[in-house]
């Protein structure tokens, strides 16, 4: 058998496969393909695979082998397609796996302690005028303090509803963005920790400053922040914790190679970030609509207590009994 003859015999199949690849690449044409055509595509692909496998024993010229590599590669990408999101699987992951992971994860625990430690310490320094007199001014900055006081000088009685929507959108954009940056930065550890600690110190200082007895705007401030606080602060802790877990897996590889360790951890940490995003979203809705409204403080406090309870239930009750070993 001459190679030239063999190529002639195969060429028709190959060019047909190539034509079908083009059709498969466009969504519209792909839908129009019949079942028989799809089966034929698979058969042609297998035949091209066989030709490539036998290229050596046929001693095909180099050019043809290259062509076959590209052709098989192209058809392979059309046959094996990316998987979409599976809603049912994701609900299960968010309600079962994430709480268990968070409950047991040392990184999330460490970030939890760090965040709240720094937050409380910063709040104490900022509220006391004797402990560290210039702390609040240095941490928050004069301009921001003035702006804060200006924002909360009037009692909260509700605002224009169109502004509510606008602000809810802004919070989703801004806060979730900070969370995602915190998570991504955790991969190289220091940026993630920096964003998290800076937020802890800054927020703590704002809370502490507003808690000073001689700051009249304090009451309005707490009236505003109570309701959405639990979700938002927990979400920051979760994103930083999941990010830190990624960063730690560079170092503590559990006997895997570093890329393998990272890959394993990514599958483990990404759902945690997903649940943090849900929390940011809920916090943004509360912050946009309930927090600025004129509802009595009791109602806002109830929402805060309820959301804390919900989070407790999520992490402790759903997370407690069955242990899942973390990757490191």
């Amino acid at each position: 058998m001459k190679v030239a003859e063999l190529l002639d015999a195969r060429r028709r199949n190959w060019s047909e496969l190539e034509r079908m690849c083009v059709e498969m690449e466009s969504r519209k044409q792909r839908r129009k393909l019949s079942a028989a055509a799809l089966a034929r595509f698979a058969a042609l692909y297998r035949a091209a695979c066989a030709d490539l496998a036998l290229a050596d024993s046929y001693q095909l010229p180099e050019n043809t082998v290259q062509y076959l590599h590209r052709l098989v590669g192209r058809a392979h990408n059309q046959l094996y397609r990316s998987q979409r999101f599976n809603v049912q699987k994701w609900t299960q992951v968010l309600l079962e796996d994430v709480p268990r992971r968070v409950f047991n994860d040392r990184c999330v625990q460490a970030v939890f302690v760090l965040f709240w430690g720094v937050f409380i310490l910063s709040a104490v320094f900022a509220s006391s005028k004797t402990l560290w007199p210039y702390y609040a001014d240095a941490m928050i900055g004069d301009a921001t303090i003035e702006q804060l006081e200006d924002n909360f000088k009037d009692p909260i009685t509700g605002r224009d509803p169109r502004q509510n929507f606008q602000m809810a959108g802004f919070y989703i954009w801004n806060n979730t963005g900070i969370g995602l940056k915190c998570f991504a930065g955790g991969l190289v550890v220091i940026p993630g920790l920096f964003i998290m600690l800076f937020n802890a110190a800054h927020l703590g200082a704002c809370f502490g400053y507003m808690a000073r007895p001689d700051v009249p705007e304090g009451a309005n401030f707490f009236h505003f922040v109570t309701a959405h606080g639990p979700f938002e602060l927990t979400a920051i802790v979760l994103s930083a914790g999941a990010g830190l877990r990624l960063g730690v897996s560079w170092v503590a590889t559990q006997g895997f190679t570093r890329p393998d360790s990272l890959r394993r951890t990514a599958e483990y940490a990404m759902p945690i970030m997903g649940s943090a995003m849900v929390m940011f979203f809920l916090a943004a809705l509360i912050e946009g609509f309930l927090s600025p409204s004129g509802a009595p403080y009791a109602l806002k406090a109830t929402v805060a207590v309820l959301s804390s309870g919900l989070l407790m239930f999520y992490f402790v009750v759903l997370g407690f009994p069955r242990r899942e070993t973390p990757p490191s």
Partner: protein
Amino acid sequence: MKRMTAEQAPLDSTIAIVTPENIAFTYRVAGPFRRLPAFLTDMAICFLLYMGLIFLVSFLSFLLAGLAEAVLLIAFFLIYWFYGGLFETFMNGQTPGKRLMGIRVLTIDGQPINGLQAVMRNILRAVDMMPPLSVQAIGIDAPMYIIPTFTLGLVVMMATQRFQRLGDIVCGTMVVIEERHWLSGVAQLEDERAAQLAMYIPPDFRASRTLAQAVSTYVERRRFFSVPRRREIARHLAEPLLEKFGMRADTSHDLLLCAVYYRTFIADRVNEEERSASPFAVTPGMPLAASPMAPR
């Protein structure tokens, strides 16, 4: 002369994939300079989307007041963080920019990526962009524009075998070039003497696999070379062959390689006559042909 060992990987940016059909084929991995235009194209599309949304919202804001602005901000958020992730999930590993540049994201095993990998590798681009540079840093009094430098991503890409940036390493993905390669078939030998010379090659001579590869690479490309260049390249292979075949030393080297090519790929090879190729071909009447069997 240095001998090339089998372990020596070719100095090339190709990566071998073994498919479920147990076939190994190669891809070329896309480097930073093919991925940058794709990224810039995507940025331009994002920018146009932003502009379009702003235009649309400013138009609709008479009707929908605050809601329109909320939609705008949420859309900004989604486009900024999830543009790449969603496109790569629903367009089989490609964004519009990647499609334009003919590149595609695959897992390092050559499998298609799933939604999680697509979203995550795009979120982690925030790390690859580091360190950010601000115009203020060089003492210019400008607004706080932060310019991503992509230095970290570039350094990591240079250091990995598959040109992976950090996001790719974490998700176990790589970007490959998906290009067309034209089937040229067997090279046409315009010189009649090649076939004549082939008859003088000893009948028991059979080109080894590497020799066949080298000869076919040469003959398929020789029309791009000038005559002195052909002579220069062909000499290395042809001199030992001339000696082996016992031919006259003044035989044209180029012609000899053409003759070997003719003999290997075009002329009849008696001992392979029975190895017919036709059973493996898919005929129109056989849509569900089973996987072809290996030759005896």
